[in-house]
């Protein structure tokens, strides 16, 4: 009994997220029977591939007590830059590697400014956002279509899933899943991951404990940069184009997903697993609205906003409980 109770207390926010997801899905399935098809579920992964990827990076940043507002703009920059390079017949694999390096480097630079110059992460990454968005439009003001065989192949090849008939995902979808598993292990059971939690709780303490605070912070911001570049690649593959206006305010969706997933904005707690469900909840609301067809997409925003608030409430409730 005691064990169950402490398990519930420990994993309360995560369980609440999962429960809400199931609830919303069930309501949707009641209203629109087509939603019962397994493919609708997998579409959530397909449609929210890039959101999932940046949310994973965001989760790590937020657990560490930081934030990264540049991720949405980085998606735009990556998509435009790769589209422009591909237009000039650059090798697609080279383009992808280059984009990932660029994302990581930008994240690293922001991390350096945050850590060494002691500027608020909020401010630095906001500047990063302006820079990335600006650069995207500097490269090209209008949308560039990607006409590359390899990109086409990635975009259109379905991978049939076992166990489910006629259920499929695309190759880029797998990127998010692999990244999720990787990050989950990284955060829950490596020295690096636990250091991230320690810093999120109290940076000063972590420093005095002799943990590598500087290195960890730099890696986390670089990782977030890497994630946003990866998300940008996935994004440009799914739309087969690059444009400076992509990913508008997607950083906010990512933050909302992270919070809904049970990660506290104050840092120190949270899991990527929760974030996955945060993203899925975001996705399911969009799907329901699409099935409905009469409501405007702004309802998504309202729904997600309300849920975020509810979750912040739930978290502080659990926090108060735990303190007792």
């Amino acid at each position, binding site marked *: 009994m005691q064990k169950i109770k402490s398990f519930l207390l420990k994993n309360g926010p995560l369980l609440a997220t999962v429960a809400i997801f199931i609830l919303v899905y069930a309501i949707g399935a009641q209203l629109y029977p087509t939603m019962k098809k397994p493919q609708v579920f997998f579409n959530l992964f397909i449609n929210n591939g890039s959101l999932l990827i940046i949310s994973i990076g965001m989760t790590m940043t937020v657990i560490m007590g930081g934030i990264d507002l540049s991720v949405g703009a980085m998606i735009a920059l990556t998509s435009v830059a790769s589209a422009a390079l591909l237009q000039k017949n650059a090798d697609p694999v080279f383009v992808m590697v280059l984009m990932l390096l660029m994302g990581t480097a930008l994240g690293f630079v922001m991390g350096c400014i945050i850590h060494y110059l002691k500027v608020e992460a909020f401010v630095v990454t906001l500047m990063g956002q302006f820079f990335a968005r600006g650069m995207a439009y500097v490269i090209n003001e209008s949308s560039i279509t990607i006409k590359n065989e390899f990109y086409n192949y990635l975009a259109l090849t379905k991978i049939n899933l076992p166990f489910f008939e006629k259920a499929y995902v695309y190759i880029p979808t797998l990127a998010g899943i692999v990244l999720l598993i990787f990050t989950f*292990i990284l955060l829950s*059971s*490596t*020295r690096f991951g*636990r*250091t991230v*939690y*320690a810093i*999120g*709780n*109290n940076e*000063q*303490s*972590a*420093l*005095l*404990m*002799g*943990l*590598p605070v500087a290195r960890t912070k730099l890696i986390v911001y670089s990782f977030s940069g890497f994630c946003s570049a990866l998300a940008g690649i996935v994004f440009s593959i799914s739309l087969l184009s690059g444009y400076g206006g992509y990913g508008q305010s997607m950083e906010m969706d990512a933050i909302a997903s992270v919070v809904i997933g049970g990660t506290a904005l104050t840092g*120190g*707690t949270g899991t990527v697993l929760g974030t996955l469900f945060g993203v899925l909840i975001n996705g399911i609301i969009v799907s329901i609205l699409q099935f409905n067809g009469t409501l405007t997409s702004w309802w998504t925003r309202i729904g997600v906003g309300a849920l975020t608030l509810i979750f912040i409430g739930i978290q502080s409730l659990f926090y108060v409980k*735990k303190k007792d």
Partner: protein
Amino acid sequence: MSNPNDEIIRLEGICKNFPGVQALKNVDFCLRKGEIHALVGENGAGKSTLIKVMTGVERFDEGKITYDGKEIVIRSPQHAQNIGISTVYQEVNLCSNISVAENLLLGREPRKLGCIDWKAMNKRAKAIMQDLDVDIDVTQPLGSFSTAIQQIAAIARALEISSPKVLILDEPTSSLDAHESNLIFKVMRKLCSAGVGIIFITHFIKQVYEISDRITVLRNGKLVATHETASLPTIQLISEMIGHSLAEYDEMKKSEFVVNHKKALLEAKELGRKGMVEPFDLELHAGEVVGLAGLLGSGRTEVVKVLFGIDEPDNGCLIVDDQLIKKHSPFEMIMHGVALCPEDRKASGIVGDLTIRENIILAIQARLGWFKFLSKQKQYEIANKYIKMLNIATPSSDQLVKNLSGGNQQKVILARWLATDPKMLLLDEPTRGIDVGTKAEIQKLVINLATEGMGCVFISSELEEVMRTSHRVVVMREHEKVTEFAGEVSEREIMQAMAGGE
């Protein structure tokens, strides 16, 4: 015994300036292999700063450090750790959100395939804590344990992380009771017989004599002297620390308290809360100091928390000033003229990023309501009054509180509540981490306040202090009020009541 030629670390001519404060002036210090070296001095004398310089947290402006015979520059706490200097800093500096095991071993945890081997890690952590006679579930987050356990965990980590040559303990016993302090002393002795040099900072003179081989005294950032403990009389030590003799320490007498037959200021009847404190009766009269004695965790803090409405009682009633308290909340109590100076300054009260002045006026402001402003001039007046009264070592009342030494932060909290001019004052360990001179000042202050008609509840782990200041002593044991002494009572009697049994 230590051998004078076996120096591990030597600091020469260390100077360190902070804006407006010269924290260290030309300080020399050396530590030998296998000795316990006490570092003492008043609040703000520079003890913690010296430690921080030695461990790379702060850079020094001038001077040199020789370690193991070679001159070195210590770049960071991590670097210090790698070369064998481990530290437990003044405030518990671990992370409360991760498990005890992680706190102990993160950084050199056992690994399997690059991942943490949880089973081995928890086992090892458990064994480490058991070595220190502490048997707990190490998979629980550190924050769920008492300060004492957290402190022991911090020491365990310092020992574990690098088999150190130098171990620095900055006031490790300030929040521990005698039994727990002994635990730590036991560990210290074991280590120093293995050749580790230990620097031990404390404000408990008794502990200095109990455990140290040599003593270094700092005053106002300057080195006063280093002595062999055995050949230094207490009187001289104290006068070296505070710069004059401590005559008033002995002269102090509590005011005569005559029970006037008027009603009590505060009266608790069968007040209690499940799981925190068993129902108790307590009366507090004007002009009276009631001491709460008991071991750590015996429920002393819980008593004042329930009285102050931080934790709502679920039994009995509380009458303040002839009025029955219906809604238990700190706000309500403040409105009735009750103030609580809490135990854990870091968690409950001090705002490091505000100035001393702002911290002090916080509670008055709250009492006035947020729309009635105190003029700046008035604020400074109040702040300066208490800075002087409590001897807070600072260049000005505009200093940020986080830049104060630990003991001085404690004084700021005390000042905040004194400034509200309460009728009843609940003091939970107000003298923790405060130097002998000021301790005497605070005791005197409490007695004076009582003479002026205030009723005080005074909690302290030092029985001597409780006895010196209080007219009545309430003894707590295992979350229950066991007895109450009034008038003359011997220390032994109280101790017996605290420990239980005969």
